[in-house]
């Protein structure tokens, strides 16, 4: 397992200047503008050797996939970087319209650790924007690349990145009427995928704890559909609570101390929390309806959920103690799987209308509804930790199974995440601190 302190970050100084002052920088992306023109950036092969080049390739791929950067074809480069510590020939990069330039070097220390260094240059201002170095074990090379990409993303957009994150999801295989499901985890770019479970029991809806060390999910183990906890490091599993019926739709509270979920009794589902330390359970809703898919606001003060108490599934917001249950969705069709943005400003949902399934967002008061994508079947959005990108699963008619996709909050830059087989129920991890 990766530990929080495995990386050491050192700021690289160049020519006496620590950072170019932000006021002097001309390279920036305003990602609030919607369909922004991607910023042309030159990501040079890090020196020296195969692993160094693989790291710079992952950096370029992350930046490209974000839709905010357009890495320039390396064939167009004029200057060949020989010394990463020297200032580049800015004219050579300006002439190919590289507004930003990334240069790096990867070396192996005497103790076997990798040392990865990079510098980000503003070519038109002729200034270094960023210079950092990291030490890590060689097997963590992809993580180092993602951390470098996050640093570049944050320096240029002013927003936190999301590349050093993981996705937990359900890997599906076999025919539709005899589907095998396994919990699986991978990096956000689809690499380093591995299964977390291997049994014939149905497993569904995995979600990360805030510290990324635990997963809560639902399993049909022993023909008893229940919410479970899984410790990622040890593989230890536990049932959450001792409830008299099916429990499902779990999520952690933002402080990680509670799991919120639905309990099914007869024809009704109501929302409960369980405190993981005291093991006390609290009932939050009490209706003859299906109340499910609860999701906390990032401050933990409110919960959004879906209910068919008014006939069709609609979204409701209540206090974290169950008070003040208020419907917020009023458009055509039905709304489900609400998920509160990590920024707190929006709620993502699945909407069914006119035989189509859409992914959309609205403000927590229900205003400002925007549909990001529509099709035969799109379901189950999850937010990147910076609240700028959503992942969901999509099944096209006749496709045989679902696949994972990501899309910008703007509705642009839809991308499929490559998985070995079918995949569903993605949940994005928080950023590692």
């Amino acid at each position, binding site marked *: 397992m990766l530990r929080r302190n495995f990386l050491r970050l050192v700021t690289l100084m160049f020519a006496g200047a620590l950072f170019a002052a932000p006021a002097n920088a001309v390279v920036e992306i305003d990602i609030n503008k919607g369909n922004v023109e991607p910023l042309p950036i030159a990501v040079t092969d890090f020196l020296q050797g195969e692993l160094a080049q693989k790291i710079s390739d992952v950096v370029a791929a992350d930046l490209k996939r974000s839709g905010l950067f357009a890495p320039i074809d390396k064939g167009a480069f004029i200057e060949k970087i020989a010394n990463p510590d020297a200032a580049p020939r800015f004219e050579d990069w300006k002439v190919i319209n590289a507004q930003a330039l990334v240069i790096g070097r990867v070396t192996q220390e005497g103790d076997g650790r990798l040392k990865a260094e990079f510098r980000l240059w503003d070519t038109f201002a002729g200034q270094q924007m960023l210079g950092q170095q990291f030490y890590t074990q060689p097997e963590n090379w992809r993580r180092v690349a993602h951390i470098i990409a996050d640093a570049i993303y944050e320096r240029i957009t002013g927003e936190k990145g999301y590349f050093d994150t993981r996705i937990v999801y359900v890997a599906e295989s076999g025919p539709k009427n005899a589907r095998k499901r396994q919990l699986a985890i991978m990096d956000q770019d689809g690499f380093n995928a591995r299964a977390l479970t291997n049994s014939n029991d149905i497993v569904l809806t995995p979600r990360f704890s805030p510290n990324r060390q635990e997963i809560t999910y639902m399993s049909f183990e022993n023909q008893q559909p229940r919410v479970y906890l899984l410790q990622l490091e040890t593989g230890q599993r536990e049932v959450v609570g001792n409830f008299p019926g099916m429990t499902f739709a779990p999520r952690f509270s933002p402080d990680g101390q509670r799991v919120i979920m639905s309990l099914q009794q007869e024809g009704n589902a109501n929302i409960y929390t369980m405190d993981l330390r005291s093991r006390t359970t609290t009932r939050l809703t009490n209706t003859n309806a299906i109340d499910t898919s609860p999701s906390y606001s990032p401050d933990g003060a409110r919960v959004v959920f879906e209910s068919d108490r008014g006939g069709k599934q609609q979204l409701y917001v209540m206090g974290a103690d169950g008070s003040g249950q208020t419907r917020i969705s009023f458009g055509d069709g039905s709304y489900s799987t609400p998920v509160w943005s990590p920024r707190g400003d929006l709620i993502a949902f*699945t909407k069914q209308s006119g035989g189509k399934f859409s992914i959309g967002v609205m403000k927590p008061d229900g205003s400002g509804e925007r549909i990001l994508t529509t099709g035969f079947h799109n379901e189950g959005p999850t937010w990147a930790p910076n609240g700028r990108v959503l992942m969901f699963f999509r099944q096209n008619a006749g496709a045989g199974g679902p696949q994972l996709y990501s899309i910008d909050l703007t509705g642009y830059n839809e991308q499929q995440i490559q998985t070995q087989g079918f995949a569903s129920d993605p949940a994005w991890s928080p950023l590692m601190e």
Partner: protein
Amino acid sequence: MSRIDAPAASRMQTIARNPVMLALVMTLAVAGCASKKNLPNDAAGLGLGAGAATPGSQQDFTVNVGDRIFFDTDSSSIRADAQATLARQAQWLAKYPNYAITIEGHADERGTREYNLALGARRAAATREFLAGQGVPANRMRTISYGKEKPVAVCDDISCWSQNRRAVTVLGGAGS
């Protein structure tokens, strides 16, 4: 909280020891190969003569009584055709009191996962309630919802979705 340490192997042994479970799995597999629309709730779908089933057997229940009922979209109301099937099930279960049953509630795929788990549970509960009204003792019945996770018909149109919105009465071992 309880620790889970039951190995997967013990589950397989349980299934292997239970011929009723195996028979059900095979029945569904046959239906899946033969046609994506026909279900094994009539003799023709299985290619079996109605007389082939031994009275009181799993096959008798599935073929001559009907082991499943269907629902309208988003509904858990027991339709008239389903009421007739459940009445036959209740009579059969009265005649063969050794069977306990599990009522499986299912949903079609045209809904979101968590809602469909609850909808399947609602259908199973409505089915159990109807059977109880027909005299099946509560202690012989348990319910489980599989939501949209176990479709029997796999096409992407209404002909399949209507087959997947179902409650299936599965015969277990000796009743308690």
